């Protein structure tokens, strides 16, 4: 595993602000594009980030999304201050949701969030306890060329 970290960025997420939801994920997509991450990986990361971000918006008071870009992978951490998940297995069940009626009427809370995230990520680690927030760690492999370099130039910037 290549330990050279090329970039690190953090984006805040505001709980309950439904209509701002997606801003952090959109920012992540932007920095991945600038770093030359391949489109297929960006697509998978965007889906997972959006779902994780909306989980924070719908259920927590606040949180943040951190992205770390390495030559061979991208890692995402989504950390929130919220009620936590009492039963992770249940929350992983497609269709199961604890979203409010208000959120459901707006098209959220379909119970597809965590299942969608698990489908997109190459590795997923969730740490949570009731009343203790959620810490979600995701890893996505990125396309690497034969010489070990990413397909296009990395900006190498640190945010």
């Amino acid at each position, binding site marked *: 595993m290549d330990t050279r970290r090329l970039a690190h960025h953090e984006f805040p997420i505001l709980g309950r602000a439904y209509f701002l939801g*997606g801003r952090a994920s959109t920012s992540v997509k932007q920095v991945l594009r600038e770093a030359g991450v391949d489109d297929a990986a960006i697509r998978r990361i*965007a*889906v997972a980030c*959006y779902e994780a971000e909306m989980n924070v918006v719908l259920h927590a008071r606040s949180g943040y999304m951190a992205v770390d870009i390495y030559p061979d992978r991208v890692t995402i951490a989504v950390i929130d201050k919220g009620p936590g998940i009492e039963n992770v297995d249940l929350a992983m069940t497609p269709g199961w949701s604890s979203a409010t009626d208000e959120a459901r009427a*707006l*098209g959220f809370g*379909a119970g597809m969030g965590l299942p969608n995230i698990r489908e997109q990520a190459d590795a997923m680690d969730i740490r949570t306890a009731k009343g203790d927030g959620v810490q979600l760690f995701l890893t996505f492999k990125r396309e690497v060329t034969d010489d070990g370099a990413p397909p296009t130039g990395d900006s190498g910037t640190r945010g």
Partner: protein
Amino acid sequence: MEPPQPVTVGRAVEALDLGTCVSADPEALIAGAQVSDLLSYVMAEGQRGQVWVTIQTHPNIVAVAGLAGMHAIIIAGGFEPEPETIARAEEEGMGLFTSAQTAYLLAGKLYELGVR
């Protein structure tokens, strides 16, 4: 039966008689469509270059369409987007259109035009 011809955003806007809130590149080719009001579903199934027919009107639809790489959102059923939705679509360069027709009819017309 002849294979369907490529359909541009401009042609769809004209044929479906859509109202324009935020314009999109009229020459962009439509690579399919989604019809759904569940954001997670569209996030998971939406593909680059598609258009999305929905009755949701809040700004989050722009985030979903943008993350999925879609060309445009069509708000069906005579619903109007919220001002914040229009602002966000302008900010992100996302096409935003409206129609008084139902999502069902719009989907049928898109299919008839050749969108697959």
